[in-house]
């Protein structure tokens, strides 16, 4: 009888080990412990990346593995090609150069902010193939299922010779990426700003990291969440007043997440003034899943805030955060550790409210920031801005929203997350925020997407807030009422002008639509004087000089 062929159970490990041997011979004496000099980066990448590999290049919302991105564009496409790139964020030109150079061909990602227009052009020319556009949590999840990286190129603040990494406050995506790669036969390479004898704290254990490269320059990092209070308009103040009085106070929202933008920055700056004057301190906004927005400083100083867990950090906020360990999640070394995966999970499951802006809302309440000439993705908004159907714990805000929903759609008692879309009816250049059909449909056709890229589905949205008032979609009995409730706050857009006046007045009588005056808000009070800080300098002053804004935000 023939002996059965022996099954190999460690093929992937053998493959990794062969790559490591190739790296050792390519690097020779220039490799010391795990440290690779910057001028050998390209040789290292050519040794450990095989054609067709899945490569996770750390591009986060804020920090960028920019030196490794640049090095990757310099490898020989005759040796390494057809790469399948995995990235949270496409932020740098190099991220797309890879496809023009014939090094990469397939992309799975979450957000492409600054590269959105070029990405759309390249997709149009067939230069790049998109696997899917994910949410952050979705992409991290797939790293542990079917998109596990063969090679991860990550970025940290410092490392020691054994590969222990200190990420600093911008830990962001690094732990999720490294864990998926290191425990499934992958290779982890980190670029670091400095080599040290001992890292301030170990964010990534050295035995999960194969190589460390001191980069010639500190990594790029974007202060994405800094909003200058000087640019907040009176309309935004008015909308913030409605959010606080008409939604936060109404439901007693204690746990929440804010999107990026001046609309929500206005809310943050009204907490110590307007919200405090309504007696809401301690009753709303105690716990947050939020980046350390500088516009939160006055609310924190006023004692409004008990805790903030962050997806990433924010440039200039480091010393302030370190001085407020009761509020932020700071390590034994004193600096913050952020974590995008955990904070996204917190925003999805542990928050009672998400509020954010969008570019377009249709008459079913679906919203999207996709436009025909840009493929941008949505990052974390779809997870923040979705009712967590898996949630089981109750809170007063969650129960009240659920009760309102059941008043229209009877069912077994359960709660409901509050998902608020906050938009002015017209954006700049008179672009209407309310439309009959989202541009997402045209983009889906143009880019051959299986479904239109919707940021937040109408069924997940509970409130739409504009300068004209608040539409509470939980209280709508059917699709027709829902449409009229949306039109009823759509202002002078074509959709707003097309409202059924009688139905809208009826919805207002029932409290489905609320105007500022229905909430007891006098529009004349909506002035910038209500803002707890009216400039970046005010924020610095409120922080007692601890906040140190980047140069571009200093105008004094």
């Amino acid at each position, binding site marked *: 009888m023939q002996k059965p062929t022996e099954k190999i159970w460690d093929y992937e490990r053998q493959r990794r080990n062969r790559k490591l041997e190739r790296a050792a011979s390519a690097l020779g004496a220039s490799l010391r412990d795990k440290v690779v000099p910057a001028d050998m980066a390209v040789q290292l990448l050519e040794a450990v990346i095989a054609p067709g590999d899945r490569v996770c290049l750390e591009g986060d919302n804020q920090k960028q593995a920019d030196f490794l991105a640049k090095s990757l564009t310099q490898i020989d496409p005759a040796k390494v090609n057809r790469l399948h790139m995995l990235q949270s964020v496409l932020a740098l030109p190099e991220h797309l150069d890879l496809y023009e150079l014939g090094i990469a061909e397939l992309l799975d990602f979450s957000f492409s902010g600054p590269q959105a227009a070029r990405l759309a052009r390249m997709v149009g020319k067939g230069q790049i193939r998109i696997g899917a556009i994910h949410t952050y949590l979705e992409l991290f999840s797939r790293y542990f299922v079917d998109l596990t990286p063969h090679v991860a190129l990550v970025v940290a603040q410092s490392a020691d010779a054994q590969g222990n990494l200190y990420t600093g406050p911008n830990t962001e995506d690094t732990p999720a990426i490294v864990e998926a790669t290191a425990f499934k036969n992958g290779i982890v390479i980190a670029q670091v700003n400095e080599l040290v004898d001992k890292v301030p704290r170990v964010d990534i254990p050295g035995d999960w990291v194969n190589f460390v490269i001191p980069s010639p320059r500190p990594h790029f990092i974007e202060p994405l969440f800094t909003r200058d209070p000087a640019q907040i308009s*009176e*309309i935004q103040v008015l909308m913030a007043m409605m959010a606080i009085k008409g939604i936060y106070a109404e439901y007693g929202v204690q746990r929440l997440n804010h999107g990026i933008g001046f609309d929500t920055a206005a809310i943050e700056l009204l907490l110590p003034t307007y919200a405090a004057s309504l007696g809401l301190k301690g009753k709303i906004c105690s716990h947050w899943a939020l980046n350390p927005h500088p516009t939160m400083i006055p609310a924190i100083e006023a004692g409004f805030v008990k805790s903030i867990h962050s997806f990433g950090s924010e440039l200039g906020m480091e010393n302030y955060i370190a001085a407020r360990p009761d509020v932020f999640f700071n390590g034994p070394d004193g600096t913050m550790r952020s974590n995008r995966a955990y904070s996204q999970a917190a925003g999805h499951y542990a928050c009672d409210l998400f509020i954010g802006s969008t570019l377009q809302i249709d008459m079913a309440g679906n919203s999207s920031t996709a436009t025909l000439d840009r493929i941008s993705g949505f990052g974390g908004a779809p997870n923040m801005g979705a009712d967590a159907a898996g949630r089981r714990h109750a809170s007063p805000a969650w129960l009240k929203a659920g009760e309102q929903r059941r008043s229209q759609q009877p069912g077994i008692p359960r709660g409901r997350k509050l998902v608020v879309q906050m938009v002015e*009816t*017209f954006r700049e*250049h008179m672009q209407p925020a309310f439309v009959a059909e989202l541009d997402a449909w045209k983009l889906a056709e143009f880019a051959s997407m299986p479904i239109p890229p919707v940021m937040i589905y109408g069924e997940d949205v509970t409130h739409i807030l504009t300068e004209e008032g608040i539409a509470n979609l939980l209280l709508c009995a059917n699709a027709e009422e829902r449409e009229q409730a949306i039109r009823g706050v759509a202002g002078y857009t074509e959709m707003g002008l097309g409202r059924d006046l009688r139905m809208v007045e009826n919805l207002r009588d029932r409290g489905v639509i609320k105007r500022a005056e229905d909430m007891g808000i006098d529009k*004349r009070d909506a002035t910038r004087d209500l803002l707890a800080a009216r400039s970046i300098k005010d924020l610095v002053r409120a922080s007692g000089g601890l906040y140190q804004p980047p140069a571009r935000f200093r105008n004094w």
Partner: protein
Amino acid sequence: MTIENLKYRFDNGTTTRGVTAIVGVLGSGNLEVLVEPAALGGACEIEVKTAANGFGAIWHAVMKDFFARHRVGDIRVSVNDAGATPAIVSLRLDQAIETYLAQGRTKK
């Protein structure tokens, strides 16, 4: 850049004493609104100068709602617009008329 001139007239307003009021600034995305008394037989006349062309229908709707909210007659309203959204226009109009009326109430 051409400036569009739009004129509206709403009749049967209530004549209420007021004092000339000006609010807003002529900065980008903003506007300046002047409200002054005028013997117009109870009418409210509005003149808009705007650099953003082609939004006549929206201006008309905004002005109609403004008049419906306050119904103040014998006034002339002059609007100098630098690309403000309808939201800002409505807010400034409300601020201007409230200021006009408040000053009229305190005038001896």
